[in-house]
Structures are given as C-alpha cells and as structure tokens.
C-alpha cells in the first residue's frame, strides 16, 4: 500500500500522517531494543493495574522485620517488617500515577501556551518565550527543592502539581516550534486560501502533525518526573505516606550496611522503568524519523 509522503491540499488524518512517517519497517527490525522497552512498559502497566496478581502479600502486612531475601520474601523485609517485593510491585501504581498526572498537567499547560505562542505569534509569543527562557535557565531540581519545601504538608499531589508547573516549559517549547513549522507549510496556507476556519486548521492540520513529537516527549518526560519525585523524596521532601519507590529507597538509606535490600530493589525497579522509557523514546524517534 502506498501512502503519500506529503499531503497535498487534502486533509491529513492522524493515521495517514503516521504511516507517511514510517520510514520503512526495516527500522522496526533494527530497533529490537525499543520493542524490549515497550514490552517492559507493558508489563509495568499490567502490574500497575493488577498488583495483587503478582505480589504475594498485601503491602501493609508485617512479618519479622529486617529479614534478608529468602524464598518466602524474595526481596526481604524492611525495618517495619513489610515484604519488600510486594511493596515494590504495589509501588508501580504510584509511579504511574505520578508520571501520568504530571504529564497531563504539562500537556494541558504546554499545549495552551505553546500552541498560542506558535499560532498567534507577535507579542504573546515573545512574552511566553521570555517566561519559558527564565524557567528553563534555572536549575530545575533546586527550584523544585525550594518550591516543595514551601509547603507545610508533604503531600504527593502537591509534589505532582509543583513538578507539572515547573516542567511545562519544556513541553511548551517543543509544541511552539512544531506549530510554527506546520503553520508555514504550503498546505496549510492553501487551506487558509480556500477559506478554512481557524478551528478546522487546528484540528485537521496542526494537531495530527504534532501528535508524534508529543508522544515521544511524553515518554521522556514521564521518566523525568518519576526521577524527580524519587530525588525529592530522597532528600526528605517527599510524601512519606505515598507508596513510591523513592520513599522505599529513602527508608532503606540508614540501614544500608545491614539491610541493603531495602533500598536496592526499589531502586532497581526505578532503574528498569527509566531505561525502558528511554529506549522506547529513542526507538520511536528513530522509527518515525523525528528530531525533537
């Protein structure tokens, strides 16, 4: 089947655009790594949805504390006696919650800001770009530390909100440049000349073309947010009641010498998830031939 590489004056649907960007199925074969990444993420998604299938115990059940890994407790037990393996599995859900929530926030704000800046241009564009410049120039972790520490309460939702509010400029920048480049293509100009309404242009032309770069960016940012949350928690600024891997790692910090398994295994899972997301993002970028 032949799909046109570049749409003429016809409208592009998202699917058509997707296929036109597939630079050969050969690339899929070469990117075995990204397939692996995808599989790992899918496994994690399943774990997030049905943790009790794999986890042998409920995370709050306590046993004898500080047991080293054994056949009953694959990852051992922590200082309070909870099974580390079950905790880690249940932690997948929290990780997804954090990542998804932050990404949603940055998408909403980023689309709005970036889209407006790119599409309308002029002083709105200048203003928004100044703001993003300033936020992007600051060292993000330091800003996060300051922002989170402002609040008396340590709540996971507040952390998510703060991270999303600090992270949106990265998304807005990319969206803006994509919108700008599409705005000036001949087929959008032709559509305008034929009297297409702004709404039509946005939904039929611009949106389908920015989906792919956004998806790739989301993958990368998801990993970033998860890592940031873990870092913040590690510094003591996290929500100790949330079930994130960061909390588990921090809990094991002080007993590293005697019970290394408490920190090591949650960290391992964190590591695997981050790598899987990276590989997936790289693979997607390679397959669809996008420069982000």
């Amino acid at each position, binding site marked *: 089947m032949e799909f046109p590489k570049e749409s003429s004056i016809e409208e592009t649907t998202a699917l058509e655009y997707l296929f036109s960007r597939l630079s050969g199925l050969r690339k899929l074969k070469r990117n075995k*790594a990204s397939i692996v990444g995808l599989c790992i993420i899918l496994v994690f998604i399943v774990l997030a949805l049905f943790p009790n299938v794999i986890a042998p115990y409920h995370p709050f059940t306590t046993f004898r504390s500080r047991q080293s890994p054994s056949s009953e407790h694959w990852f051992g037990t922590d200082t309070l006696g909870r099974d580390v393996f079950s905790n880690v599995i249940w932690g997948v859900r929290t990780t997804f919650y954090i990542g998804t929530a932050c990404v949603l926030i940055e998408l909403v704000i980023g689309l709005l800001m970036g889209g407006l800046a790119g599409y309308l241009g002029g002083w709105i564009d200048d203003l928004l770009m100044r703001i993003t410049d300033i936020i992007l120039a600051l*060292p993000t972790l*330091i800003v996060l530390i300051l922002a989170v520490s402002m609040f008396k309460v340590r709540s996971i939702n507040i952390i998510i909100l703060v991270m999303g509010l600090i992270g949106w400029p990265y998304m807005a920048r990319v969206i803006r440049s994509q919108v700008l480049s599409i705005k000036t293509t001949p087929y959008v100009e032709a559509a305008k000349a034929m009297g297409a309404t702004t709404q039509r242009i946005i939904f039929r032309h611009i949106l389908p073309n920015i989906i792919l770069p956004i998806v790739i960016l989301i993958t990368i940012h998801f990993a970033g947010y998860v890592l940031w949350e873990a870092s913040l928690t590690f510094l003591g600024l996290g929500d100790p009641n949330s079930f994130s891997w960061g909390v588990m790692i921090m809990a094991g910090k002080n007993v590293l010498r005697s019970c290394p398994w408490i920190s090591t295994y949650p960290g391992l899972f964190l590591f695997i998830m981050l790598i899987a997301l990276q590989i997936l993002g790289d693979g997607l970028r390679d397959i669809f031939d996008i420069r982000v």
Partner: protein
Amino acid sequence: MRLRNYIFRRLLMIVPLFFFTTILVFTLIHLAPGDPVMIMFGTSTPYMKDIVKEMRETYGLDKPLYIQYFIWLSRVFRGDLGYSYLNTRKVIQMISERGWPTIELMVLALVFSVVISTVFGVFAAVKRHSIFDNLITTTAVLGRGMPNFWLAMNLILIFSIYLGWLPVFGRFTVGAVFSSPFGYWLDRIKHLILPVISLSAFQIAYFTRLIRSTMLDVLGQEYIITARAKGLKESVVIYKHALKNALLPVVTVVGIYIGSLMGGAAIIESLFAWPGMGRLLVNSTYRREYQVLMSLNMIIIFMVLVSNLITDVVYAYLDPRIKY
C-alpha cells in the same frame, strides 16, 4: 575587541535578570506558611505570644514584604548577608565555608565527565559497529536511566561496605594524622572518588552519546576526506580536524548541564555528608532559614547566569563562523 564588547553586553543583561529572579525567590520563600520564629518556638502557646511578637519585630518579619526585600537588598550590597536565625552565625561565613567543597565537587565532576565522554565518544564513533561501539553505547543508555542516588548507594555498598576500599562520609578522615602531604592528598582523593563518580555518571552517559553522534556527523563530512588526501596521519585527521568540529555543539550542552550538576550536587552532598552548599540548601529549607536561603539562592542564580555567559563566550570564541 568585539569579544570584549559582547562580554560586556552580556554582563549588563545579567543585572535585570538578577533582580527579577531574586524578587521572585524572595516572594516565594516568604509566601510559605510558617516562618522561622514559628519553627524556633514550635507551636506558640498564648503565653508566648508577646515573646513571639517581639522576636518577629527584631527580625523585621512583621514588616510588609517589599520593605523586607529592600532591607535585605541594602544589606547585601553592604556585604552583610545577615545572620542565620538558628545558629546566630553570620551567613556569609557559613556559605564561604561550604563554598569550596561544592565547587571542588562540581568542577571535578564536570572535567571528569567531559574527558571520559570525549575519549569514549570518539572511540565509539571511530570504531563504529564494532563490539566496543556497542558496549559503549549500551553502557551510555544504561547510565542515562540510572538515578544518581541509587548509583551512589550501590557504589557505597560495593566499594565501602563489601570491599572496604573507599570511605563514605565527608571530605577527609576526621582526626587522622598523616606523616606526609602525600598521605593527606591520598586521603582527600579517596574521599572524592565516589561522590565525583556518582555526580558525573549521568553526564558521562549523555555526553558520550552526544559526542559519538556529533563525531559520526563530522567524520562523514567532505573536509575529512580532504584532510586524508593531504597525506595526514589518521590520528591527526581525527583529533585535529574532526574533534574540534564535533565538540562545538557539546559546549552549548555543557552550559545547560551545569544547572543539573547543581541539583545533583544537592543530592550527592546529602548522601555523602559532604560539607557543601547543596547540603546547606537542603537543610535550610527544612528549617526555613530565610537569610541563608536567600543568600544561597542569590549565589546559585548568579552562578547559573555566569556559567551561561561563559558557555556562550567560549562557543563564540571557538567557532569562527559566529558573528558577535
């Protein structure tokens, strides 16, 4: 001559940025619920009300925000960074004690990561598709996903706890006496190894991949064939002709990474009990030490702006095509 003007212009731009960001940070910090007095006293009982009020007045915390800012600003220009509420020590003293260790860590991490990633990146690019290339690229991918605190903990586990080769905490062994300066420096180096590696791991992974990719781009250029056609040795072609071009885009990225180095420093310093500014920052946020926080922030912002400037200047200097 033009370079000097460029630097001057950039320095001027720093001033408004500086004011803007310090105002922003000041506002943010003071918007946080609770203030140092509250922390000092815990929950204030009705009996303490008067004392609390008096303390607040002493510290000027009852005045409106913008006045507080100007007071702070005027003091800063006189070189007085204030006193820490908790320690009653001069902030400037606290920071200057901790400044050098952090700089030590960051500079070493930066240099280490640039050197290592250049070596590996160039090697991977030149020996493309070989087993070395695959090994290096895979390691780089793994490194990018590694949380630095987890890496640090594992390194501690392996090298300090199981093998006992390297120490964990601090910059030097407390209370140790060395018979020679060599012994002293060796001890310092041993304390530096793990923190520097943990801090730079992510950088190395990222830069290696970047340098490999820029080298591959450059090696496909026609001027490389010209250089070979002149009869130059392959090593000259790679290190003189290719590398300079390949490193140009990396300079810009290094500037951005200094920011992430600072965040990383906060984490690593906390973990290794490294007496630096990062740890001070983290601790001050718990205790709401406004003076310390403002000063630290000022310094950090200043460092960021200056490092951006340096990066841009270095790039403009290295690339003859840039007009300034």
